[in-house]
């Protein structure tokens, strides 16, 4: 019996592997990239109920898997050779539909490839298709998507109500948690990688601002947006983040510094490291199970030799309001380009309609309600008479939020441990029909990290009383993703989380 077939008896579902497991097995020629790619494509076909993949690129995937197999057969082993992944719909992918989950980009097929997806392609990763998300990454539940809701593979133990996978990278989170792909790309402007990772029991890291090129990623709020990987383990996050990182002259905010070997940083030794616990994150009404997992995380890090200290980040409570001035302001400028002239949707005009009617009708039809709301808020806070009072004032408070972090790092804190989200996955429709501010509160623990430009990672910490996953967040010093990943890796080993959703789809 050929070894490959013998092996496949033990690994019946190749799509369930992690990146590092599959990478090592591919290098040992225990199976081919085509086989693991086919396993993912079959899993995707069977998971239409999750609505995670919204543009399938099966033919392209098979072509790239074959090319990867050729490289592997020549013993060429770039870091992600032959590994099948999903790509968030926010990334421009050459010749493949890319519409940021918006009607306004209906039919758009970029003639170019984003820097990050090109880097992933160059190291041999196989793109399976494009993933659902909130429209223009504006949302925390994947409910603003023009493709409809992505669904969380997790359900409460007590009922079958469909739950949100979080957002905006909801499709990425759902796909990774349900083993439709080995890993996926996400983007994070206020928590859009870490919050969905937490709600679906996977790992997600947002690196330091400037670590990954934003070129070719459809812009939402340029001073906050960062790309990052969503994976099944911390080791996988290290492997994929390294592949996505690096200086790019096409992004003027991309940092011209070298990319360390993140995987090599995973030693599991954190003795002597100082972990800060911010008292402002002990918010009123925090669920007991989140609080106890947070405490457990502190004990585990202490057990691994770290020193736990109480810290204060006094401006934390102003982070969300600052975000809801700065992000819409930048969005209103970035989204001005969608005018129905050069790409995407154009409204049908009536006799006598002029160019302004074309703009107004196109944008009214093309943007969903949350996107319109944010464009208008952004324009309002930038308008003359309000610019100083709102926009500049918010930028000053942002400086203070960053200073809070700089101060605690200067006091010798290596990383900060917090809950990732204020609750577990919630019902679809539960928050989308209420006051928009209720939905914004989902990002209460994550948004400070974007405002300060820091790296942050969410890892699964356990299940709550309803058997839904909850995450813990670690926040690191700028450019210290290696150390951050190592602390997360150490905590991951102690937590030893092995839960998987029960397959219902």
């Amino acid at each position, binding site marked *: 019996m050929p070894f490959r077939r013998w092996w496949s008896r033990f690994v019946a579902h190749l799509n369930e592997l992690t990146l590092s497991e599959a990478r090592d097995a591919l290098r040992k020629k225990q199976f081919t990239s085509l086989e693991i790619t086919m396993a993912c494509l079959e899993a995707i076909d069977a998971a239409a109920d999750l609505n995670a993949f919204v543009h399938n690129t099966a033919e392209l995937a098979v072509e790239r898997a074959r090319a990867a197999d050729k490289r592997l057969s020549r013993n060429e082993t770039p870091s992600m050779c032959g590994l099948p992944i999903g790509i968030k719909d926010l990334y421009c992918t050459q010749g493949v539909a890319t519409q940021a989950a918006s009607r306004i980009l209906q*039919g*758009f*097929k*970029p*003639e170019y490839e984003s820097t990050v997806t090109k880097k992933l392609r160059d190291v041999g990763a196989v793109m399976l298709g494009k993933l659902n998300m909130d429209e223009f990454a504006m949302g925390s539940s994947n409910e603003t998507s023009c493709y409809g809701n992505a669904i969380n593979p997790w359900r409460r133990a007590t009922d079958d109500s469909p739950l949100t996978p979080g957002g905006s990278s909801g499709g990425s989170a759902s796909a990774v948690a349900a083993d439709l792909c080995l890993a996926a790309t996400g983007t994070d402007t206020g928590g859009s990688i870490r919050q969905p990772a937490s709600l679906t029991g996977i790992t997600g890291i947002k690196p*330091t*601002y*400037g670590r990954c090129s934003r070129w070719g990623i459809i812009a939402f709020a340029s*001073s906050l947006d960062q790309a990052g990987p969503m994976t099944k383990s911390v080791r996988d996050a290290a492997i994929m983040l390294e592949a996505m990182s690096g200086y790019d*002259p096409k992004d*003027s*905010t991309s*940092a011209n510094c070298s990319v360390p070997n993140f995987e090599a940083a995973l030693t599991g030794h954190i003795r002597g490291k100082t972990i800060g616990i911010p008292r402002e994150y002990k918010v009123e009404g925090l669920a007991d199970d989140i609080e106890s997992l947070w405490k457990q995380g502190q004990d585990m890090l202490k057990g691994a030799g770290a020193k736990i200290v109480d810290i204060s980040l006094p401006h934390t*409570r*102003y982070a969300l*309001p*600052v975000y*809801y*001035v700065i992000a819409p302001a930048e969005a209103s400028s970035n989204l001005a380009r969608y*005018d*129905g*002239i*050069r*790409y*995407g949707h*154009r409204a049908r*005009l009536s006799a006598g309609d*002029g*160019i*302004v*009617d*074309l703009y*107004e*009708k196109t*944008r*009214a039809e093309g943007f969903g309600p949350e996107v*319109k*709301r944010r*464009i*208008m*808020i952004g*324009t*309002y*806070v930038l*308008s003359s008479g309000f610019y100083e*009072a709102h926009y*500049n*004032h*918010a*930028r*000053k*408070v942002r*400086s*203070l939020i*960053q200073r809070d972090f700089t101060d605690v790092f200067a006091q010798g804190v290596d990383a900060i441990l917090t809950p990732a989200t204020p609750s577990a996955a919630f019902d679809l429709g539960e928050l989308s029909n209420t*006051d*928009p*501010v209720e939905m914004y509160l989902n990002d209460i623990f994550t948004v400070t990290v974007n*405002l*300060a430009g820091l790296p942050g990672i969410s890892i699964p910490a356990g299940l709550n009383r309803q058997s839904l996953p909850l995450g813990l967040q670690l926040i690191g010093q700028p450019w210290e993703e290696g150390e951050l990943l190592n602390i997360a890796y150490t905590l991951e080993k102690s937590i030893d989380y092995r839960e998987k959703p029960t397959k219902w789809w």
Partner: protein
Amino acid sequence: MSIDVHIARNVAKLVRIRVEDEDLADLVSEFNAILGFIEQLSEVDVTDVEPMVSVTPMDMTLRDDAVIDGGQQQNVLSNAPDVREGFYAVPKVVE
């Protein structure tokens, strides 16, 4: 801090998004909920604080002033909803 229908209509005009009159009232109430949330920033003392420009101090670099790309008319126009004779087509702009 709150806005009225008049301001909402003006903002909709500035952003070039058509909002029907009957939808303006809902827009005003959502707007005011968000503005009310933002309002709490006014209690922060920002005396002598510089507004943030960039999270990491970064020097803007200049590229060489040279042509590095071009001759891609077809690629540029490939996604346009209406193209005529190699140009974007739009309704009449100047009478």
